[in-house]
């Protein structure tokens, strides 16, 4: 019964998370179809861009949910893990999400130089999904005109990717609650009520499946989430 309730909670959270971009798509497309108000060509183009970006975001959420659901039936040992270039994955994700950031007058900064020591053990699709979730969250909760910053550093046997934004961040109480429950269950954020925390939940599940984890650091302003994965030395000499 408890499992059923868990599934139901996840279902409700997923529905809520998907409603926001879908509502925007419905409203904007209705506005474009209707002759209710005169829209300039610029306003029409912006509406179409936002429909497109919102549809892409909805698809990313659905793909993440699908991956997360499939993992319930897969033992971690069965998951095909390989050395992956974390910097390259980040660059691919940033390229994909750049239009979303640009549409909100934001920039995304990749704060690293050499690609040495940036290989991690992971699954190509899952890694991309986790990074995509963290960056998407940062863009959504960031202030207009601000930047999302990605940087990484080696921590012993692990490689840590940090994603920071300049949004409203969290109260001390929220920080403690989210920090304690991060990735373990879906949780609504009071500061970000349109978010059910589903993106972070999915990211946590996928990170765990790759032998890593997600976490958060404290900032005076904004949010700071990170992904930790095992560092790989297997192919270092090839990079």
């Amino acid at each position, binding site marked *: 019964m408890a499992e059923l309730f868990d599934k139901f909670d996840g279902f409700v959270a997923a529905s809520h998370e998907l409603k926001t971009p*879908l509502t925007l798509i419905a409203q904007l497309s209705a506005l474009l179809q209707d002759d209710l108000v005169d829209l300039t060509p610029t*306003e029409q183009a912006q509406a179409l861009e936002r429909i497109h970006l919102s549809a892409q975001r909805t698809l990313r959420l659905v793909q993440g949910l699908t991956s997360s659901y499939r993992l319930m039936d897969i033992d971690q040992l069965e998951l095909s893990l390989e050395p992956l270039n974390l910097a390259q994955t980040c660059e691919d994700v940033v390229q994909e999400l750049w239009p979303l950031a640009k549409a909100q007058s934001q920039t995304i900064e990749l704060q690293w130089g050499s690609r040495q020591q940036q290989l991690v053990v992971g699954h190509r699709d899952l890694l991309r999904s986790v990074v995509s979730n963290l960056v998407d969250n940062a863009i959504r909760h960031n202030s207009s005109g601000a930047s999302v910053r990605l940087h990484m550093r080696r921590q012993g046997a692990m490689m840590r990717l940090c994603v920071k934004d300049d949004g409203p961040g969290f109260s001390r109480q929220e920080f403690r609650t989210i920090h304690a429950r991060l990735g373990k269950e879906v949780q609504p954020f009071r500061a970000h*009520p349109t978010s059910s925390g589903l993106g972070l939940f999915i990211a946590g599940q996928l990170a765990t499946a790759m032998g890593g984890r997600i976490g958060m650091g404290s900032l005076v302003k904004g949010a700071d989430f990170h992904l930790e994965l095992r560092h790989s030395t297997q192919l270092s000499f090839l990079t």
Partner: protein
Amino acid sequence: MTRILLVEDDRWLGETYQLLFTKAGFQVDWCVDGYLAMEAIDQQRPDIIVLDLILPWANGLQLLQELMSHYDLQSIPVLLCSNALPADISIKELVPYGVVEIIDKTATTPRQLLRAVRGAVHAKLSY
């Protein structure tokens, strides 16, 4: 010109509604949370409030309670909007808080929303 206070925390949805109301001839003040909305009301009293239910820091119901506690603000009509309306929410319970209509954003077109706003404005003027 009729002044609408739009309280909506989703950036793009807020901009969409602001565009809709502005093009329809309303003056629009847009706030993203309940506290900012109270500040805006203090500065310039709106003729009507289009209020999202779930907001950061101070939600729509808290803002309604705050409006109720100020005698001079009780007559401002409120359209309560959300894409996550509780199943048991009832207009009857919310009428004393100034709510004239409850709007499900997922099932309401811009045309229907505009009609509801115009209806509320018309009712207020008739009153």
